[in-house]
């Protein structure tokens, strides 16, 4: 039997249960001066993984709190030593920073590998094959070069990063694959830019920006107050700028995710589809941010669950035959140092949806 079956990803968590987990995590982290945060991270990741289900099978996260804690201790000590060296001997500090720069790809690799190894689906763990120089290229060199091309090559960089990240992952012994035409990446990039510049252009004309600017300058020259209308149109333009720039990021993210999932596969003929709608994503992200701000963070669990549920509902997996019968591999030991580093730097290398 090798029929294709398509499953929608389900997220079964809800805001009430996650709120309890979140607030207790926060309290215990505070009273232990941050020490419990390692165990809190594990609990949160377990909650989201165990409640993400495909075809009745769940994800799981297997790192232990102590493991994460020890990784964080090592990284915290390294940061403090680095800081002290910079204060005591600035020249030596600069040398250390250069060494640190070259260690970044290895740290990112270790973090990705750790997260893959600690995540399972249907009882089988994921894995990641590292390459220092590939990581150096896609995470450090290419992004720096893209600045020189005025970011016009950003879609190429993004595709290279996704190819490195995805095609080096495996599920058990089944390798992931990634094949995508550059056109879809440029389309995501282009649509985001089109939204941004299009809205700025239309907005500028609609509020009569040129005449408002001229009026304000003339008024300055003649020593009179500018017309109220000019000031209103300048203020409106500011709001339009926000509406043009912020959502552009989400538009890019939505089309990019759809393109990446379309290009992703797992050995054995399994494929993926993502149907994120940019406007819906913008709406969820903005309303989340507003609600969270208005409640000094208390609605963060609700916002996070809402986003996870939407993302899951937009994701489909087409299984060729069955998910049964995929074999896992022997586990060798991994350390959590890279993971602690990406946590500290706020780099997101999460494996998952």
């Amino acid at each position, binding site marked *: 039997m090798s029929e294709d079956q398509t499953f929608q990803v389900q997220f079964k*968590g809800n805001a009430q249960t996650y709120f*309890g987990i979140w607030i207790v995590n926060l309290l215990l982290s505070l009273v232990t*001066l*941050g020490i419990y945060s390692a165990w809190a991270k594990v609990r949160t990741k377990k909650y989201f993984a165990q409640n993400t289900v495909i075809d009745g099978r769940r994800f799981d996260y297997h790192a232990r709190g102590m493991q994460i804690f020890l990784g964080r201790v090592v990284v915290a000590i390294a940061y403090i030593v680095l800081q002290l060296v910079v204060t*005591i001997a600035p020249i030596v500090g600069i040398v250390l920073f250069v060494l640190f720069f070259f260690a970044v790809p290895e740290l990112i690799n270790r973090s990705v590998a750790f997260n893959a190894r600690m995540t399972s689906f249907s009882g089988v763990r994921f894995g990641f094959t590292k390459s220092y120089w590939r990581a150096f290229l896609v995470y450090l060199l290419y992004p720096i070069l893209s600045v020189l091309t005025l970011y016009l090559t950003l879609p190429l960089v993004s595709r290279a990063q996704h190819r490195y990240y995805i095609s080096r992952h495996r599920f058990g012994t089944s390798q992931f694959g990634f094949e995508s035409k550059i056109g879809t990446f440029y389309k995501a990039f282009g649509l985001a830019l089109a939204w941004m510049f299009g809205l700025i252009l239309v907005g500028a004309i609609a509020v009569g920006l040129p005449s408002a600017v001229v009026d304000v300058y003339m008024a300055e020259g003649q020593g009179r107050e500018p017309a109220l209308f000019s000031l209103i149109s300048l203020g409106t333009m500011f709001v339009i700028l926000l509406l043009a720039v912020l959502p552009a990021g989400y538009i890019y993210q939505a089309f990019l995710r759809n393109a990446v999932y379309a290009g992703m596969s797992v050995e054995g003929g399994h494929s993926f589809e993502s149907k994120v709608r940019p406007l819906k994503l913008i709406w969820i992200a903005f309303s989340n941010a507003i609600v*969270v701000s208005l409640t000094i963070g208390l609605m963060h669990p609700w916002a996070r669950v809402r986003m996870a549920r939407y993302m899951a509902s937009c994701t489909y997996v087409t299984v060729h035959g069955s998910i049964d019968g995929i074999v*896992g591999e022997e586990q060798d030991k991994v350390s959590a140092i890279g993971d602690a580093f990406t946590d500290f730097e706020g780099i997101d290398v999460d494996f998952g949806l």
Partner: protein
Amino acid sequence: MTLDSDQLAQATYGEVFGHAYEKRLSTQISARLVRDANGLRLENADGETLYAGPPSNVERISGGPSLLSFGAQWTFDTEDAKGAELLIGRAKDGWLSDLETWHPRLLIVIAACLLGVFAIWKWGLDLLVWGAILLTPPAIVTAIDAGNLGAMDRILMDPTELSQADKDMVRDVFEDVRAHAPEAPYGEYTLYFRKADFIGPNAFALPGGTVVVTDALVEEFPDQDILAGILGHELAHVSERHSLHQLYRSLSIYVLVAMIAGDVGPVLEDVLLEGSALASLSYSRKHESEADVIGIETSHAAGYDPAALAEFFETLSEDFGDTGSNDWLSTHPSNADRIRIIKDLAAKQ
């Protein structure tokens, strides 16, 4: 409590349905966990026993499934967490799940969190900072002085161009003030002269006791009383370990926020970081005021007129303009405030 549930579990016959997985295989097997007169065992849909005996590990996050391990070979998960609990007893961290349950009790947890943030901000950070200062070997502080002075000499400062007479005059004042200053925590106070036009008429201290006086300060304020006031202020920064406090405080905040960042979410993280940046400015203003107070006591004890420092700030305000009000965003209190407080204190001496 553990005893109760153990007994309950041993007494309860029943079954829960779920899925079993063999080690390192994705194949999902419909299975049931059953306890009857023959004991607890894991069975597949055909009634064959996969494993007999109690689980080696039980795990459950509130609102989620129960995940059980049996020996090294089998795992079993079930949505029927309540049923599983009846059969096998509670997970070891059951108290945590109880605390997390959606219940009015969580309001107390929220209040405790707010209280916790306040307590950390008020006392926890000071505790961390004092601990770190106690752990810092004096050799490191001395090395901070040497390293910083060396680096500034290379990049920012030139050798002094003051006359020998000027230098002798300042050195005399320095010796007087030093004799009456609080004890230096890391080695003796040492005076250096440097030409550093980028900071104007100024003096600064490094944590190990190095005090640098700029040429511009001696040229524009050759008054011994003023110099005594300024030196007293700088020595107070050293004796109270102000720079170490600030260094460790910002490091602690950075580490603390970085660790809980994943949990508080992006919006609250920004609030915490911005808030702590403002708090560290108020901390810096507090240190300046403290150094003013101790400096005045020192220069008075050394036989100089402490009110002269007020004159210094008055001249600064006339020449450079006051930096404005005593606002949130300054590292130093406003000159007007400092003049008023210095005059008050000097009058009391």
